[in-house]
């Protein structure tokens, strides 16, 4: 895994290497029309299945598929909007409880992963010790293990720890994440070395460098990892299904799946309502965190 390292380069030199070019206004206009078209196609294409899911949640069981084919406005809009499905999932299926469990478990897994990964990534990138590359390689090895293979032995482990009725079982096994360590290792390695050397000369301890130099400079990567690990937890299905034995602590993905009943037609309305409810919180989170990903002012200077 040592091969992943690539040498840092002189960034200023690279910036200066960009060749000059004169702007051409007609080309600009054609390009922006083209761009807007792409944007519309992408947005519609990405959202179409979603739109169908959202609006189906407001249809009755019988209407959901009646209007699926042939296409009409009724395919994408409920002709008789109803909240019945939502009432059903909250009242009959106690979905609120599952929703809350998922939020707590995902937040816990997110915080755990960010803390553990950033500590390990710092030790792996900013501190000098023999064998660090070997340890990193060993860590990455488990990223390759398919979950279906270790599921049963892992269940035996959490059972012998008496965790199967404990909330901890939902996230504790996953907070030490090879992907998290990998991602932050990449990000930390991007920070120029002179930053910590300057701090070192001022007598800062490694932990102070970690806290005052590295973390503030890798905010966007930390937020990315937070959202990724939140998602991993949020979308987990097989593990909570297998490991969590207390039905009051179960998460939403399992709850949605329980809307299908043996030897009977599934409760489609409830499934769509559940999926809609399971989607919105994370989508809102993404929108709220957007400023961490996006350099909004980036190209504005060029436009004028």
């Amino acid at each position: 895994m040592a091969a992943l390292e690539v040498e840092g380069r002189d960034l200023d030199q690279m910036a200066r290497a960009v060749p000059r070019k004169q702007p051409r206004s007609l080309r600009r206009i054609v390009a922006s029309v083209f761009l807007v078209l792409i944007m519309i196609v992408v947005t519609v294409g990405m959202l179409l299945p979603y739109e169908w899911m959202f609006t189906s949640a407001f249809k009755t069981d019988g209407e959901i598929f009646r209007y699926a084919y042939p296409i009409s406005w009724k395919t994408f809009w409920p002709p008789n909007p109803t909240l019945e499905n939502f009432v059903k999932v909250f009242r009959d299926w106690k979905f609120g409880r599952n929703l809350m469990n998922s939020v707590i478990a995902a937040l816990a897994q997110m915080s755990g992963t960010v803390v553990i990964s950033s500590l390990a990534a710092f030790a792996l990138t900013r501190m000098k010790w023999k064998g660090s590359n070997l340890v990193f390689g060993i860590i990455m090895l488990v990223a390759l293990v398919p979950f279906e293979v270790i599921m049963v032995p892992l269940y035996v482990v959490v059972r012998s720890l008496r965790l199967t009725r404990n909330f901890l079982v939902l996230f504790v096994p996953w907070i030490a994440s090879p992907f998290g360590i990998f991602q932050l290792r990449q990000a930390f390695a991007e920070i120029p070395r002179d930053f910590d050397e300057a701090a070192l000369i001022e007598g800062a301890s490694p932990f102070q460098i970690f806290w005052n130099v590295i973390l503030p400079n890798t905010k966007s990567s930390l937020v990315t990892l937070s959202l990724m690990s939140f998602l991993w937890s949020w979308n987990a299905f097989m593990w909570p299904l297998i490991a969590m034995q207390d039905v009051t602590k179960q998460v939403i993905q399992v709850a949605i799946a329980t809307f299908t009943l043996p030897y009977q037609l599934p409760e489609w309305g409830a499934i769509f309502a559940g999926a809609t409810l399971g989607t919105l919180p994370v989508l809102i989170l993404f929108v709220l965190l957007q400023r961490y990903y996006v350099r909004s002012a980036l190209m504005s200077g060029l436009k004028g």
Partner: protein
Amino acid sequence: MSRKHLVVAITMLLVAAMVAGCAQPAPTATPRPTVAPTKAPVAQPTAVPAEPGGAFMAQLRKDGYIGPALTTENITLRMLRTSRQAYEEALYKRWNEEFMAAFPNIKIEEEVIPFGDLFQKIQVIIAGGSPPDAMIIDGPFVKSYCYFDILAPLNTHVAAEYLADYVPATFEEHTCGDMIYAFPHQQASCAIFFNRDKFVAAGLERPPETTDINAGWTWEQFMEAWKKLTVTPAGAAAPDVWGLAPSEFGAGGVGSNYYLEGMYIRGKGDPKAPKDSEEWKTYASISEDGTDVKGYLDSDLAIEGMKFYQSIFQVEKVSPTAGMPNSFPDQRAATVLGTDAWVKRIQAANASLNFGVSPIPHYSDGVPFTHGGSTTFAVTKGAKYPNEAFALLMYWHNLKNRIEFHQVTGSLPALISVFAELPYYQKLPDSLFQATLVEFAMPRPPGPGYSQYQSVSDLAIKDIGLGADVASTLHAAADELNGYLAQFKK
């Protein structure tokens, strides 16, 4: 020193890995009958010592519980089951509360999971050495669980008279050797649902709505009707309304579930033919010891049956090749093969649908055939509190609660005496499902290898439905399956 820390860290890693790796399943508690507490009430030494649970327990004994008295210690009884409709959930909740009121020292904890993941969940908890005291299981798996020694037999805790009341197909399915391993929870049988209006609109005679299953239409008759019922609008590339709805079992569509599609094979056979004949083998679907399917799953008759099945999708194209949820209640299909419990669900999906139910079709040269079997409950061999688990399940399954259960869910009873108590079994369509169950329903292929049987045949049937060569697909499936079943040979 840095190396020292590294060594320490790696050692810890290895030790932790070893510890975790060696964490074998904890020895499961062997079922030890809880001895009834001997401190009988001192005040009335001559009277019959009152059992814990008092009148409730006395009634339970009348219902058929013959096991030891229940514990007076504080215990938690663990139950694994699948999710149900709200009205059914309410029943379990109330029964459990009634049981816990009679035995305040017993706490019932239920774990509820999706049905689709039940088999996998059971495998994991068994491998993990932590089985619940009681659990729901799928009927055809009883013999598998029995082979692997996972369930506790009912005979030690349930009266023989109660066991004698089982519907024969249920009794057969739940029996392994000379012991019975599951409660008579519910049954299922199949019939064909049809949209009366669509038959009228197509100018067709309607199939008979009768309890005389032999008077039902043949598959061939239905094929002719399906062709006329399939409507393709002018200029459209595909029909808008289909003759036959795709399967809504399992994943839906072709090869969804052997429960449904196995009927197209086994219906070609004959239960009355001699046991070495092709007719009998096709009907039996597997050898009597449950280890051989060559000549059963892929007999010439089975191939004929599957050719008919394939023609539905590939030649006549009267049914779509992929699942279409709710197509029957949405009037996108004129007929659908479904079980008794669907009456309620179809009505719920479309209250104004004018539909009838006709007997399961049979081949012109075959006998009516439907699979029976449904989910049921059993006590695990590793149960910590087997007596209490049996008592609770006995309470759920006493006559009074059974009657209420079937009234609420509309599913078929698995106890003969319950039918008599439910007046709607005197009229259609429920009487048809009862007649089908009692006269024609068969368990799915018996034997410890049902999981393998179902998995292999589902894939083969799917490929056939999508157009693969019938004979070679079935032969390959039978060979593959025999490979998996070899382990069960004595």
